[in-house]
């Protein structure tokens, strides 16, 4: 479009059509390429190269001198801790994402229900967990879960309930990790869903109300179909982030008690950086790739589909 305009200007000036236009086009694409060059450099050097390099690393032995093929992977398959980590990562990601999505959906509805004057204030308050750096808010949770001074246990004691070993017992520790994750992530869902709710035309609800739809029918037949795209994409995003999560587990339990809260990222850190076995750590983190790839594929499909519609 812009080129046509420029070429017209060119012919008016009588500078001679084809060759100068051609040169201009060439120059434009060169300029564009140069402008994108820093981005390409960053992506290639710091994302693509390490990603491929980790494939190579995963096939080396501990001292990184000898090629062992799939040796690291077969070693992992034989270890009980590895299967524990696989199980925990999946439970952790799926449970957390489901509850984040549910709570986000419910809270978004409540915020949407109240008069729009007060919505800003509530929205601002409810997004606070998302704004605080996760490492720091997890510290607050760690203190709330403290074995001897837990403020939650103090409240429970008022009702005569025995102290809960929040981070001491394997099952409670998993619960705590998931709870903190939900606490941090639910506001994000809330904000996304609220934006989506605002884009549903009010007439649809009016029409549904006139037709005598109950509130459940309104949600099922009007709200959910209208929000389907946002729900799908937010869930997939969150799945990626939750599955690859590191901060929360690291600060809250550091994988304990007895590796019963380790997920791929924290275990890869423990094995690769702290344990000094870089190839094994790389192999562990590579196990995140399949689920990430599936989620990414769905997201990309959705985005290109919407791009074609527009």
């Amino acid at each position, binding site marked *: *479009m812009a080129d046509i305009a420029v070429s017209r200007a060119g012919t008016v000036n009588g500078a001679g059509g084809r060759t100068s236009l051609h040169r201009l086009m060439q120059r434009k694409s060169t300029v*564009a390429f140069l402008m994108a060059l820093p981005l390409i450099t960053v992506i290639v050097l710091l994302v693509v190269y390490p990603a491929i390099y980790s494939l190579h690393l995963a096939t080396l032995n501990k001292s990184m001198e000898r090629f062992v093929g799939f040796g690291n992977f077969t070693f992992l398959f034989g270890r009980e801790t590895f299967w524990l980590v696989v199980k925990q990562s999946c439970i952790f990601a799926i449970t957390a994402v489901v509850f984040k999505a549910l709570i986000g959906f419910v809270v978004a509805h409540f915020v949407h229900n109240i008069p729009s004057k007060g919505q800003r204030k509530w929205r601002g308050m409810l997004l606070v967990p998302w704004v605080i750096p996760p490492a720091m*808010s997890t510290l607050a949770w760690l203190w709330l879960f403290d074995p001897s001074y837990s403020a939650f246990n103090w409240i429970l004691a008022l009702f005569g309930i025995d102290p809960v070993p929040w981070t001491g017992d394997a099952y409670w520790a998993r619960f705590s990790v998931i709870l903190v994750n939900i606490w941090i992530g639910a506001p994000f869902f809330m904000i996304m869903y609220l934006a989506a709710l605002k884009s549903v035309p009010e007439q649809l609800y009016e029409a549904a109300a006139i037709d*005598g739809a109950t509130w459940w029918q309104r949600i099922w037949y009007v709200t959910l179909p209208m929000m389907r795209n946002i729900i799908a994409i937010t869930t997939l995003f969150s799945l990626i982030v939750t599955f690859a999560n590191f901060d929360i587990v690291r600060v809250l339990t550091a994988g304990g008690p007895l590796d019963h809260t380790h997920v791929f990222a924290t275990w890869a850190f423990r094995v690769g950086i702290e344990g000094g076995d870089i190839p094994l750590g790389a192999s562990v983190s590579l196990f995140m790739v399949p689920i990430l790839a599936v989620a990414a594929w769905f997201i990309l499909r959705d985005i290109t589909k919407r791009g074609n519609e527009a």
Partner: protein
Amino acid sequence: MTAVTASDAVAAPRPKYGSISKSRRWALRWSYFFLVLFAIFFLTPPIYMFITSLKSSAEISAATNPWWVFEPTLENYIELLTQNQYLIFFRNSAIVSVCVVSITMIISVLAAFALARMKFWGSATLATGVFLTYLIPETLLFIPLFKTFAFVRDTTGIELMNHWWTLIILYPTLTVPFCTWIMIGYFASIPKELDEAALIDGATWLQTLTKIFIPVALPGLIAATIFAFTVSWAQFLYPLAFTTSTDQLVLPVGIVTTLIKGDVFNWGQIMTGALLGAAPPLIIYAFLMDYYIAGLTAGATKG
């Protein structure tokens, strides 16, 4: 689609309803009730941080009501802010974040402009690639990067490990893809007539960018800046893996690793440190909430 599903609802039995305004009023009351419950859930940890930060060590270990401050004191704040170590963490964090934000914005605005307006060979693929890299988490990259840095040290003698400025090299991997992505969205929404007019008037591409695109897409620019700042301020994994000396740490890692001395947790100071560390993003959020939220929602709704 919705028209069809909405007409399905007609088939359902009609509920008996009295006055709509009455049921609305009840819905409103329930909404407020649950909002208060959720607000308590979402705000308890930061409030408890604040409560603890006002307590002395003696009061923390006393068997009194933990939710109340009986003798408020600022000693934790004074101690932290006069302590050299914490100020170094804060300085490191601030320098790293500011540098990362500047680098990110320069790289991503230039690239987004090129990708949104000036097509070149492979530009469509690159745009998709940018989005894909955003989906690659840092937990996948830190081990190969760790090894690469060791390799750089062995071959060139440049020590990249255990320096806070290394983080300036690393953080753009987290910020650049997303910022580029949302800037592409904002730039693409600018009507083509604007830059065509500028081109006809003889503006160069750089002038079109600085005189038209940046001013028009300023809200997007602010949103991307806030995003880049929050991400680099909060990043935990890279500094934990790449820096170890106490004078090279940034805030999140510094608080987690140094305030815990052995098995003794000085909770008053930890909470104070965490609260002060969370302050910059919270302050930015308080003043620029709309931009913050725009940036959050832009990632998924634009594009």
